[in-house]
């Protein structure tokens, strides 16, 4: 093919490419506008609000404080306590969900009668609204009339008079318990999808080579499941970092359960401290972004490594 021929052939293609690109831009623009209105604008507005103080004493007065609200937040013990509580909750609950979810996924993956029923039943807790879940566990862990204490008392086990939601540590334990109960099935579902793409012949080959069940699990299942695990971890971690409904219903944040989102809500909605409250919301957003960024780097690296191996 000569150069002249190439330019002749290329010219109409380039023209159509440009017009196609323009068309694409036109087609995408309504969505972009919608995203700008519903996502970008509120985020930017929250940042703007967080740089101001709005008076509660003087009608309609506000003043620019720059990063003052952020300085107040990061120098307050409440913020750090809420951050600590949020991370403790996230690490423990996501870890338990992963372990339990993986167990459930392996069980659901095994071929047996009634597998379809099990898969449906397991998802029920996840389908219940979190607020509903929280109300349920609040009733179950009621110190006087709750199911938990009644059972402990009936079985003559210690702890039948524990005020579950009225003590540090216990309140957090109930919160983690309720979260794990609700979201382990979701984790299981994501991992099950990962399990199903692992080809059977790999296992068969391992069996022929004499690998034990445990060896097959650690050398085949876990490495091949890694991308699915990381995706599931991202979903759950980001959700857990934003936890609001469970502490709101269970304890209103008492006894060491005031998470970042709940603290921001109290400042914004109850105290109407719009500037400081927005600053807290932005800080929560930054923390969640930072964690998801770390994860994405981790997953990205992993997928690439995986692609290189094969």
């Amino acid at each position, binding site marked *: 093919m000569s150069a002249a021929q190439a330019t002749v052939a290329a010219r109409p293609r380039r023209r159509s490419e440009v017009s196609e690109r323009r068309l694409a831009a036109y087609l995408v623009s309504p969505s972009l506008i919608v995203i*700008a209105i519903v996502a*970008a*604008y509120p*985020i*930017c*507005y929250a*940042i*703007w*609000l967080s740089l*101001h*103080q709005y*008076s*509660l*004493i*003087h*009608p*309609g*007065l*506000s*003043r*620019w404080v720059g990063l003052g609200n952020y300085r107040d937040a990061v120098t307050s013990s409440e913020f750090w306590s809420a951050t600590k509580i949020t991370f403790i909750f996230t690490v423990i609950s996501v870890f338990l969900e992963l372990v339990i979810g993986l167990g459930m996924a392996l069980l659901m993956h095994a071929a047996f009668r009634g597998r379809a029923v099990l898969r449906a039943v397991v998802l029920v807790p996840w389908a219940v609204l979190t607020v509903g879940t929280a109300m349920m566990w609040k009733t179950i862990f*009621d*110190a*006087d*009339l709750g199911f938990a204490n009644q059972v402990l008392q009936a079985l003559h086990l210690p702890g039948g*008079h524990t*005020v579950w*939601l*009225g*003590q*540090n540590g216990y309140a957090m334990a109930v919160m983690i318990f309720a979260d794990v109960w609700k979201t382990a099935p979701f984790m299981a579902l994501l991992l099950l999808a990962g399990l199903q793409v692992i080809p059977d012949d790999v296992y068969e080959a391992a069996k022929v080579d004499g690998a034990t069940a445990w060896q097959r699990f650690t050398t085949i299942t876990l490495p091949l499941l890694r991308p699915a695990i990381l995706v599931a971890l991202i979903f759950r971690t980001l959700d857990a970092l934003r936890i609001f409904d469970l502490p709101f219903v269970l*304890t*209103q*944040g*008492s*006894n060491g359960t005031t998470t970042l989102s709940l603290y921001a809500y*109290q400042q914004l*909605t*109850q*105290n*109407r*401290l719009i500037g400081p409250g927005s600053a807290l919301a932005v800080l929560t957003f930054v923390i969640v972004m930072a964690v998801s960024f770390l994860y994405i780097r981790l997953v990205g690296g992993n997928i690439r490594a995986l692609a290189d191996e094969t």
Partner: protein
Amino acid sequence: MNKKLASAGAILACAAIAAGCGSSGGGSTGNTVAGVGSNGKTVTPDMAKNAKGNVTWCIGKDTTGAFSQVVKLYNNQNSGVHVKLLELPTSADQQHSQLTQREQAKSSECDILGMDVIWTAEFAAQGWLRDVTPAINARKSEFIPATLGTAQINGKYWAVPFNTNAGFLYYNTSKVKKAPTTWQEAYQMAKTDGGLGYQGARYEGLTVNFLELLYSNGGKVLSDDGKKAEIDSPQAQQVLSFMQQGLKDGAVPKSNSTWMEEESRNAFQNGKVALLRNWPYVYALAKQAGVKFDLVPLPKFGNGQPASILGGYNLGISTYSKNPGGALSFINFATGPAAQKKFFIKSSLPAVITQTYNDPAVKKAQPFAPELLKAVQQGKPRPVSPVYPQISQAIYNNVYSALSSGTSPKSALSKAQSQINKALNTF
């Protein structure tokens, strides 16, 4: 490269949007440092006389139908004013945010604002309420004086009391033979006769329960000029140690620290506690449950005067209302004898005017009416301040930590003191 461009674009877009709302949302234009009482919009009784036109009444959900009945009664009078009821959500927090959003937007949709008594100061400070002092003064003798205290700031009235509420001490007559007259006596009885319950969870209810003992012991939250905290006092320490001791002795069960109104009512009905501090709504429910009980207005602390914290709602007239005269005309009706009787009987919303309590029909429907009148008369408002939510948080957070984590009363109160002072300095 593309990524960088995109993020630069995002930053630019953000800046543009932020700048855009700077002109509208920021709004720090006027330099008037005006406190409560600046808008100069006063509602006089005359304005209601020849009022015409439409009025919208915004208040929490009409769960019993009494609000719409009273609106209908009013509209049937054909006074020339037509009232429409706009129901807000059931939750007080939601009502608050719905009302504040409308007022911030300078909306004229709500002429009459149904406010929890603790919001009145905030709304007045924001300039959202019209001064109704002349309208109140024209009818002052009708109201129970204590209820007016919740609507008064800087010597002026910013709302008209609509309904009120006060705590009672309920006691199980099969366990407790005679009503205690002091809190000390009540706790003593509780220790031997089966426990006392109150609203001890970490929320607004705990502030109320603490203040009832504190006020009765002669303590205060704010100085008289409202400019600084005075909660770190020997009186408050005495009350907090007393409450702490009650939990230690077993006079108050440990699970009390998780109780709000309903949990404590259940505990009383199930026999978990023999004495209970709660609101009048418990009366009908405990009767239905077959509990043998009686009730008295709250006892006193030691040698002090008994004090109950007042609940209830006030009606304010929005600054942005286009028909303040019509609004006042309806408010006068809704806080008048016929309507107040209806609310009290049909919705158990205690009346703010004295005469309703002596009405035979009211006494028949709400047999505790005479006791309630006494309780409301000895009632005290919570600190009237635009930053009340923060003040209350400082109280319930620190009282809770003294009661449940064993923080010493001295350090809990000094922490509350500094947090309240900080709140009072809120810009």
